[in-house]
């Protein structure tokens, strides 16, 4: 779950990470009031869950509260990288001496948290060559100790004032990262402003699997209506633009199914991984979800492990009996309780394929003929 910049900065402030004085606003009038309260020149930042807002015109500067109101009026409601701007962050305009980059994330290969830093922060961080990127793997047993911050400050070449800020900032950032189950805490840029450091941006991703124990965080949902429904059912779902609706179990199998459909010249309408132990009720709901993509063919590819073939078959029959399925359904079914599943489908007159290539070829053929 991604947090909006203003939420991230609220978290930062709670952990003692310095942020610019600022306020989230939802109307031009509020922007005016906020700019007045802050005093002096301000920056107005569109709150969307994507980067590169500057390049898209989503960030404005204002010298007076009146200008802030006008900028807010222009930004609110604007479409930016596919997101509608509904909130703005009005902040003091910082004097910037240097833009640094720091982030904490998880390196799956190293099986450790990794701190990444660079003296060359800002919009082009991904272009900074490897040797000017500082990477520190954090030992989980002792956490991010002050000595790591000192080492990073040294390598960043910070002067005493900003260095001392960094000694406090990095351990605080790590505490947030660990306590809030963050997959990512990113500050880009981390601004050197005179003798101090200020987090000019905040990008925080919270682990979806840990939301059950992060009840005090705001809930941010940037899914499409169909993806939201998928989330409720508990399946992994991405909308695509093709005409063959796909349901498979397991991420690898779902990818393999997409690959196979593509191989035979078909185009998938979606990616739907119904996962491990999804039961009859959920499978039925997943099928209904597929219909909403308005496909020409539905292709169900199940290789049962935790998923039981009889559940899938039962669900298909249940859906078929309760609603009209207006398109052909191609089923490939093998694995746990395969025999029972097959029998259930046969009783309903549905053919179950054994081989994936055969089934995929059939699905593509039907979609082309439709």
């Amino acid at each position, binding site marked *: 779950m991604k947090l909006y910049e203003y939420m991230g900065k609220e978290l930062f402030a709670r952990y003692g990470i310095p942020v610019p004085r600022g306020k989230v606003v939802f109307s031009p009038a509020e922007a005016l009031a906020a700019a007045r309260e802050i005093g002096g020149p301000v920056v107005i930042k569109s709150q969307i869950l994507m*980067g590169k807002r500057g390049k898209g015109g989503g960030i404005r500067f204002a010298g007076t509260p009146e200008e802030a109101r006008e900028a807010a009026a222009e930004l609110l409601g604007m479409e930016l990288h596919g997101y509608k701007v509904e909130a703005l962050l009005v902040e003091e305009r910082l004097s910037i001496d240097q833009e640094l*980059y720091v*982030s*904490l*994330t*998880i*390196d*799956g*290969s190293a*099986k*450790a*948290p*990794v701190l*990444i830093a660079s003296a060359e922060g800002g919009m082009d*961080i*991904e272009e900074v060559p*490897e040797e000017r*990127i500082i990477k520190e793997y954090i030992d*989980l*047993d002792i956490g991010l100790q002050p000595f790591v911050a000192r080492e990073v400050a040294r390598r960043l070449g910070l002067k005493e004032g900003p260095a001392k800020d960094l000694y406090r900032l990095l351990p605080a950032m790590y505490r947030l990262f*660990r306590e809030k*189950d963050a*997959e*990512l805490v*990113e500050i*880009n840029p981390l601004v050197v402003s005179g003798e101090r450091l200020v987090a000019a941006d905040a990008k925080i*991703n919270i*682990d979806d*699997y*840990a939301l*059950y*124990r992060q009840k005090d965080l705001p809930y941010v949902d940037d899914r499409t209506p169909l993806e939201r429904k998928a989330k409720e059912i508990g399946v992994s779902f*991405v909308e*695509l633009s093709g005409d063959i609706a796909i349901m498979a179990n*397991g*991420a*690898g*199998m779902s*990818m*393999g199914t*997409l*690959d*196979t459909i*593509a*191989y035979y010249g078909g185009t*998938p309408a979606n*990616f739907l991984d119904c996962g*491990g*132990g999804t039961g009859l009720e959920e499978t039925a709901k997943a099928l209904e979800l597929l219909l909403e993509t308005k496909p020409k063919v539905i292709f169900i590819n*199940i*290789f*049962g*492990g*935790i*998923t039981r073939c009889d559940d899938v078959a039962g669900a298909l029959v249940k859906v078929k009996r309760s609603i009209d399925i207006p398109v052909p359904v191609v089923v490939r079914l*093998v*694995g*746990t309780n395969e025999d029972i599943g097959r029998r259930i489908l046969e009783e309903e007159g549905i053919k179950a394929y054994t081989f*994936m*290539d055969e089934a995929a070829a059939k699905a593509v053929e039907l979609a082309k003929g439709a």
Partner: protein
Amino acid sequence: MAILVDENTHVIVQGITGNQGRFHTRQMLAYGTKIVGGVSPGKGGQTVEGVPVYDTVRAACEANRVDASVLFIPAPFCKDAAFEAMEAGIKLVVIITEGIPVHDELEIQNYARKKGVKVIGPNTFGIVSSGKCKIGIPPNQFFKPGEIGIVARSGTLTYEIAGNLIAHGMGQSTVVGLGGDRVPGMTFTDVLPLFEADPETKAVVLVGEIGGDAEEAAAEYIKTMSKPVVAYIAGKSAPPGKRMGHAGAIIERGKGTYEGKVKALKEAGAYVAALPFEVPRLLKQALGQA
């Protein structure tokens, strides 16, 4: 022979009294796995499918020799259960559970490193040494003794490929599921050397996915292997995954793409299948039986 587990592996099931635990205990017993106990706090003294249940892992280990544990434990409690198994001295821990918070996974793998424990998973189907021992959830019928080792990041795709192998008359020595999670235990580079050293294994199938750099690391090792490797990488036509800010891009630095992985594997001398059902043909070719 086989790798990691065989007919002498003594296994316990943590979470044996839950639905999944019960169901798969029955399946594993049916496959011939030597399950010596189950663990379920407060249920000590009961039996499940004839298997004695203990309150704690240590109690199970006091009463039995235990070589491996398999976890059917809800995600929020999985870290603690994995710690319990490792602290009790069990050296192979198979975590089936899906949806474990990534910070818990970090802690599990970190503790495993300290304790010298091999972790398979989380979010894995488990491990099967065909005809000898199945620890995990794959359907029994797709694993027949043979000379092909399989190591895979994804579950169902592995059943698919294992099933295809059998249909083409090829069985497996051992099939290892690495799990699909962000901080996995054993990886390709941990498992490939075991296959390389296993006299029973003649060739290895590697089932990878886009994302991460595990396949690239595997390619480095494959260069040194004497046995042929056939790889399939899923996700050529997959939708783009969730982006981890700039940090993700900085870590991956161009690794993780389908093209990059295929290139690395081919350069390492592996055979790369474009689709799952090409694997048997490439294997036969690799083994000179084509």
